[in-house]
């Protein structure tokens, strides 16, 4: 039973609109450092292919949203690059682990750099803005993907994440890694 329903969508669309407001910014160094450490841990687990541990950083009722349009819009009305709930993320990992996901056989090697971390208050939760530079090597070629990310954190877990790829409305070559 998926927890994604109309109310869940409405909450996510609202939460990821107009949240980077100066009056909500958190300047406390310890909080910012905790958030930065979580994002760096996430990058390391993904780069090391430790996908099950990576998913452990997420809340039970999480979502990973990668919009396909220049403005994120409403995923109920338009397709995204992906909008994954926990089951779909588990499916994604399962597929990569079959050994027959040819787009990842052999798997990509990746290095993620996380920077420009800023933290904002969102009620009881935190919203974290960061930049991501992902270098990917596969099948003899090295390429890069850049994005700005929004992590919503609750009780030390990632409960929603939006990845805004620089090339989100352009064609992507082999977008088969876990972002």
């Amino acid at each position, binding site marked *: *039973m*998926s927890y*994604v*329903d*109309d109310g*869940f*969508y409405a909450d996510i669309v609202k939460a990821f609109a107009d949240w980077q407001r100066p009056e909500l910014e958190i300047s406390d160094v310890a909080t910012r450092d905790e958030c930065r450490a979580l994002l760096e841990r996430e990058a390391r687990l993904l780069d090391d292919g430790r996908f099950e541990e990576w998913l452990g950083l997420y809340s039970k009722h999480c*979502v990973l949203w990668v919009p*396909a*349009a220049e403005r994120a*819009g409403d*995923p*109920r*009305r*338009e*397709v*995204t*690059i*992906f*909008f*994954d*709930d926990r*089951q*779909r993320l588990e*499916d*994604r990992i*399962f*597929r*990569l682990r*079959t050994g*027959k*996901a*040819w*787009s990842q*056989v052999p798997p990509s090697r990746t290095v993620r750099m996380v920077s420009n971390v800023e933290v904002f208050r969102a009620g009881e939760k935190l919203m974290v803005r960061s930049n991501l530079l992902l270098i990917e090597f596969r*099948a003899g070629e090295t390429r890069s993907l850049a994005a700005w990310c929004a992590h919503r954190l609750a009780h030390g877990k990632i409960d929603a994440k939006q990845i805004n790829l620089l090339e989100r*409305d*352009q*064609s*992507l*070559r*082999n*977008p*088969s890694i876990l972002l």
Partner: protein
Amino acid sequence: MSTSTFFEHLVHDDRVHRSIYTDPAIFELEMTHIFGGVWCYLAHESQIARPDDYITGKLGLRPIIVLRDSNGTLRALFNRCTHRGARVCRDARGSARTFQCPYHGWTYFNSGKLRGVPWPEGYACDFSDGKYNLAQLPRVESYRGFIFGTLNADAPSLAEYLGPAKKPIDEWLDRNPGGRVLVSEANRLKFKGNWKLAYDNAADGYHVVFSHRSLLETENRHAADPNKGMSFYMGKPDEAPMYVQYFGRGHHFKDKRPNVERRPGALWEIEGAQPGMTAYEKAIREKLGAKALRALDLAASEPVNINIFPNLSILGNHIQVFQPLAVDETESVWHATAIVDEANELEGMAHAVNAIRMRTQESFPNFGEVDDAANFEEIQKGLAACEDEWVYMHRGLGIPGRVQKLADGTLKAPATDEVFMREHMREWQRLMTTRPNIVLAR
């Protein structure tokens, strides 16, 4: 060697020469003979719904602006200033009555007619001469929302070009309320391979259980009875009721509907798990009662692939477009479609149907197409072995009774047959040896 003899050497009954996928000179000819010679899919009407709406794109490699002009007429203008050649429009989409070239300020109405140039007293010519208008495709037509265009003045009407393919297109549309759909964003992929690799794949029932093995295993990992998605390809797919059909002119059809029981809800039952499906299914059932199953089937993927040569594939709920970028690079855009329910046949539940339908449409590009694209790239790499010249597509060839010729002249064969590929290659060969009557309108 004459051109026709040259191409006869490349396309045989059972195989084609590797160079048709790798030779830049052949690719360049294709941009004239194929992408200049036949009706190509340009856009969907919902992408340019109102007068003055436009989107930019390509016809082969030619930059074009597909638009509805201020009078509502569909046009495809070359996005190329008559003056010095710069693209006059640099946005992906928008609304505009005129286009002004940013380089020297020449301005055109969206009919393509030149509106004016800066400091005209510096010219001795007569700018009312049509030769200064933007070039445009002489023929642009729509079939039920699908806009096609061609440069070939001698092409048959679009309806004639589509021929028997109109029937499955009609059926694909008529399953939706009001018999229409809206395009709502896209999953956009590209691969380092020739565009024909994607078109060859479009009706290929042979690759499914191999190329898409990981998808089949994933979709069925929770199913007690593995019947989700394309599971009907497991076992003996050639003995299943699905089939492949060749329509002529390069168009073909992979019809998997006969594998699914003809009753409301049967399609929904084989849909894999999608985010939000349980909550929206509950809401739809509560609201619509007995009519709920029809609505749920609209959220599920329609099991057809209707392939219109050279660049369109209508499959599942997608409008997929193949866009060549170079001899060895192709874009494959999966435009998603949403339903529109103006007559309120679904009693306000169209929103819920679309909320599921968006997620079902993300599934295949993410979990299926990426693996095909990886295999297309591996073909392009494999074909670098230049002494090993042939690519085989002879599955089913020579087996008596396997390919049936139907009364309407179309060919029907078991699901994994490659007859459709052999036939579109024959059509490709015919087009490559026929000079189209290319005319620019202005």
